């Protein structure tokens, strides 16, 4: 009786070990694949279908790896067409550096560089693409350390083309 119980326990224990081992292998594989995707700098493009909360027709811009969308608005003022805010746990200089590289790869030109690329509280850059003052041809990029000192807010905003023309006409 006792021996049978021991055998059954040993079998159950062996099965459990096997399940645990298989689970670990699967978890490791998935984790490794994700790590490879993010470490290679692959961009996750924003699109209305990929991000449930992102504003409709929001322009395609690179998304910082493992960042979380906080809010996204469309035409919230007369002069700002789109804004989106993302949160990440990385540092301000690293986030800004990543964005400047990723955006330039996408054809954006850096017009305004951060005064201090090592500033860890906040950094600001402006970029243009295509014909100057064209529709969605200007991007304002703000990277700001949050008050918790642990997370960072990334804001991408697209100002409307020159609003003065209308007033002059």
């Amino acid at each position: 009786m006792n021996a049978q119980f021991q055998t059954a326990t040993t079998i159950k224990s062996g099965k459990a070990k096997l399940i645990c081992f298989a689970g670990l292998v699967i978890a490791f594989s998935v984790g490794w694949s994700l790590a490879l995707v993010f470490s290679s700098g692959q961009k996750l493009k924003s699109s209305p279908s990929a991000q449930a909360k992102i504003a409709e027709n929001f322009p395609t811009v690179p998304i910082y790896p493992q960042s979380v969308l906080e809010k996204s608005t469309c035409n919230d003022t007369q002069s700002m067409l789109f804004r989106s805010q993302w949160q990440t746990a990385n540092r301000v200089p690293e986030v800004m550096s990543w964005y400047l590289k990723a955006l330039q790869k996408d054809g954006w030109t850096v017009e305004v560089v951060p005064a201090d690329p090592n500033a860890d509280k906040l950094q600001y850059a402006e970029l243009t693409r295509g014909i100057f003052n064209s529709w969605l041809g200007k991007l304002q990029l703000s990277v700001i350390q949050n008050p918790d000192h642990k997370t960072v807010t990334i804001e991408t905003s697209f100002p409307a083309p020159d609003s003065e023309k209308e007033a002059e006409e």
Partner: protein
Amino acid sequence: MNRKYILITLLSLVVFFSIYIPSAAAQTTFRFGVWADTKSGTGTLNTISRSMASQNVLFLFYPGDVCSSGPTTDCLAVWRSAYDAGGDLFTISFASRGNHDASGTSVWTSYFNVAAAVTKIGATNLNSLSTNLTYSFDFGNSHFVAVDMPGGDATTISAAQLTWLDSDLTAAENRQVTHSFLFWHGPEYPMGGHCCTNASTITAVLTKHPSVSATFHGHEHNLAYAHIDSTKISNVTHPYEEFTSGGAGAELYACQRGDWCQSANGYFTVDVNNASFTVKAFSTTGSNLKSWTFTKSNDNQPNLKNLLSNYLGTNDSQYFPVDGKINLLDAAYLIQQM
């Protein structure tokens, strides 16, 4: 005997220089000028420059719209020729971009040299978010901030600029400045030409800072004034003054609202006198159109509540004013700074 004379001469020189050449930090009485929006109106700017030069301003602010289609080297040369018609005003000037300056960022950042102007006028504490675009400094008892605004309207201010402005004003207030004077292209309370969307995101920051005395703008081609309080922009709990000085040559816009507005070319001067400041509006040829004198109350003098509510130092990384808790060690540190 000779040594005695040399010693007396040296002592006299020290006394002379210490009395007659006070540092900018000690100055509480001084004058600066504000003008903006020339575009193709360099003829008018030429006339205004002669008038401005006669005002004996120590320095000038120009919040945007130098040329019509972006700051090209040729256009800047024409503009500067008119700007300096009355004397060397350019090298004591602090410019920031408007929407008509947006296309030539690299030309702008190499043409204007804020650090050189800061040195020339003897200002201190230069702080930049983006070099020669968004920056601040102290002069006398006052803090000066210029914010780059290539989108034109004040609603185009970026999240980084707002955060920077907030922390920059906090730092200035911890240095116990009496006034903060702020400059960017589009007014947060437009009064004519780009009326009437208020930039309440900006006033949400300004209202936290009792040192803010006045903001100055262009964008709207007229001379205008408004006392900004909650009746004008609902989230304002700390009232301040707003001036639009968009009359440096560009075609004029009609006035739509405000406490005073003239669809006229011209400029403003500001006389700072300790806690008071007097703003004067002048026509192109220097006729005084209107004057206002304001005196700051004592609410921005250093006090424990003000310091604690704005404190974001590194003394204790766990301390944040937003959680409503006060760390006694931080309080002691701040009291020590008072």
